[in-house]
């Protein structure tokens, strides 16, 4: 990281990592869901986020990351959380809800008001850029 510290304070780590989904990634890949990863979890995470991971595997974990309340579906609340995190809260509430509505319109196949894993995977198939954005270079 450029300096010679060996122990970093929480604030320093927070400023270094600017991925808005960093907490969710840690929660999804940790064993007990609280963000503390063992070495195996760490390897899992980099294995999934590498170039060689197949699309379905990435889609599966991306789904889990975006499912903030861990109920197995991405509902409107999850979508609102995602959009807010993506835009750092700079969109108005009305715009956020409009975006969520359009997303549900586009991706919800069985019209139950939320995205299941299959809906999500179907939508990912239509996004060829997913493989290159859901990727961390080592």
């Amino acid at each position, binding site marked *: 990281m450029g300096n010679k510290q060996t122990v970093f304070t929480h604030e320093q780590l927070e400023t270094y990592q600017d991925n808005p989904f960093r907490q969710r990634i840690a929660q999804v890949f940790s064993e007990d869901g609280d963000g503390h990863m063992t070495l195996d979890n760490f390897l899992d995470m980099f294995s999934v986020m590498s170039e060689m991971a197949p699309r379905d595997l990435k889609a599966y974990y991306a789904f889990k990351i975006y499912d903030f309340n861990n109920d197995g579906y991405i509902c409107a609340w999850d979508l609102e959380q995602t959009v807010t995190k993506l835009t750092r809260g700079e969109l108005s509430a009305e715009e956020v809800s409009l975006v969520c509505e359009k997303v549900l319109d586009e991706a919800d196949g*069985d019209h*139950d008001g939320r995205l*299941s894993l299959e809906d999500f995977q179907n*939508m990912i198939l239509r996004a060829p850029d997913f493989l290159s954005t859901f990727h961390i270079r080592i």
Partner: protein
Amino acid sequence: MAQPLNFVLNVAETPEDHGQEPSPYDESEVHDSFHQLIQEQSQWVAEEGLELQQREPGAGGPETSGSGQQALPGPEDALVHSTATLRILASMPSRTIGRSRGAVICQYYNRSVRLRRRVSRPELKGVGRSARPSLRLYDLELDPAALQEEEKRFLLVKELQGLPVAQRDHMLRGMPLGLAEKRCLREESQTPTGKQRGRQGPRGLFPCCGRLRDACVLALHSLGLGLLAGLHALRPWRYALKQIGGQFGSSVLSYFLFLKTLLAFNALLLLPLLAFIVGVQAAFPPPAPPGSAPSFTGLELLTGGGRFTHTVMYYGYYSNSTLNQPCAPPLAGGQCSREAAGLPYSMPLAYLFTVGLAFFITCITLVYSMSHSFGESYRVGSTSGVHAVTVFCSWDHKVTQRRASRLQHDNIRTHLKELLAEWQRRRGSRSACGRLRWVAVRGLVWLLSLGTTLGCTVAVYAFSELMIKSPVSAEQEGALLALPVVVCLLNLGAPYLFRCLAALERHDSPVLEVYVAVCRNLILKMVILGILCYHWLGRRVGALKDQCWENFVGQELYRLVVLDFIFVLLDTLFGELVWRLISEKQLKRREKPEFDIAGNVLELIYGQTLTWLGVLFSPLLPAIQIVKLLLVFYVKKTSLMANCQAPRRPWLASHMSTVFITLLCFPSFLGAAIFLCFAVWRVKPSSTCGPFRNLDSMYEAGKVWVRHLEEAGPRVSWLPWVHRYLVENTFPVYLVSALLLAVIYLHIQVVKGQRRVICLLKEQISNEGEDKVFLINKLHSVYERKERSSPVGTDASPGLSSPSRLELEGGQPGLPSARTHCCAVYPHRVDNL
């Protein structure tokens, strides 16, 4: 599905009713998440209020729900399903997949069984359009005793052992389990005798052999993996690309990846040329021309002439005879003196065939990578679903730097705002006057752009005619640089003019803007190259009748390549560095100039076209192009890091990569191939130099050889037969074209059929969703009726006087076209029904 719906709210029992029965708030009974979901929904319902129409108690007949509704009565009422319903819902198969390891293993076991039986596509014979046959077709696992996780795992391992290795690895890689578990599964499935080894006491020799063999296989496997990892680490510029990706994102990275691809193409082109032409001729140099070779001045590096003229660099150096002939031609009518023992090597034939082979390999590689890239980036229906794709796929996890992440946030926000604005604008229509103005502005800008292109073309043509009319003597070789300088200046200046013109027309979608800019620049470059090709093959051949016109053309192309590099450097210097300095110091803006991805990629394509055009006349041109690309990489990278920022507009990286490689294939490579074919078939080679000097066309070398083989007799080779009946005859060409057309037509029909299948499957999914909601509601009503009739729940609820139940009634009875889910109605989704 805009059927009018009526909503009736159930003022349900309060939680105290379920005294003895375990309540849904009892966490040990129900799945955790469902409990949370219920809590959230009840909070919402209480806080936000559902916009529903309250039904009269006992009144019949559906009323249409318009947009005006009344709020939910009372915040204390909560929606509660019975616990039995919730328990059933919690154990639905779709809920458990992805939640537990056992379910994942079970799912993959089923998948591998299906794979083994090779049932890959769902059968369509039951998919009707009028009825709802889906549940009948569904192969429900009706055995009530679900297999234990261990058993399922054992079965999965057995299935994996039955699969071929590649498929097994592919399946293991795709399983969403932890790495440790996948490793265990792989080990278990690799050793088929693993389970039986313990029982093999009396077998003696067999365990040792088996173990040794396994150890060897594993060792080889790990060696292979180690090599692969080593190769992976040896990839050139791995750290530089990571740096660029981290700071600027995938969009700018795509330019550098394209550069790497071009390097690979040039290396592929250079290898056969080096091996079969340059190397051989360098080993057997031709006799030196009369007169001393000119001394080396620095100007040769720019003009390619002078000292470099009579070297392996150009066509004129190559001999037109057979090298390394065992019997040298008799000098004074004497005997055959054996000069060397070895293979006779016919230079003209080698030249023709090697250039042809190199082009053929390049063509195959280009088409393959283009189709591969197209397959990756194009999807049926990929134009719809823009919002979903933006929300879920646009955050680039590669970006690690703080400033770059902030830029990404800004870009995504802007993109979302633009999408919303576009959607709202599409709802409002444009007036006739506005449309007319839109068309007029665009027409004018296109007219101006094409006019600029025409002007540039005429300028190049006029200048080239001028150069022919005033021939340059040997001392004034620097004057030969005039035409390439003019061409490069025009190529540099016209895109800036196009950018100014494009500022006049305001495009709705930024992607369209990029396409239009790429189109205009491409037209300019290709037209200028076309004029130059005409100038060389049409006019220069005639003008340089007794001299080596091929050398001249080769040198012209060398000059163009070198000057293109110099102008790229100048453009980087002025376009990026100076602009940044000006914008920071003078204009006091914090923004750095954007890295123009499209313009830079087109520059690379132009340079590669020049190389391909020049390969026939200057076999070492790909080597010069390689050196140029290496230098350009470092220059661009340095300038990017110091001076630029990532583009603000969204950039569909994989889509644009496909577009660029298509552009590399179609106008660029195709044009070069046409030029090559014309030069080989139609133009008479010069009679003073080169390997084809006494022939009428370069292709004739091949014909002469075939005739030679024919004279030697039919037993020598089948090649003359092939040549006469397949190459010179036109019938096979027609046959092959007809076959290709038939194959293309077949593929088009297959794609059409697949599109229809997708529509049908989408409808099926939608029907399944409706079925599910219908069943849930039915279940709920059944259990409710059961609870009502049972003695426990009847005496404890005084608040049940106004039973407005949450029911879903469609416009037609018996067809609940519901758009809700089981526990709540989403407020904002009621409106658009």
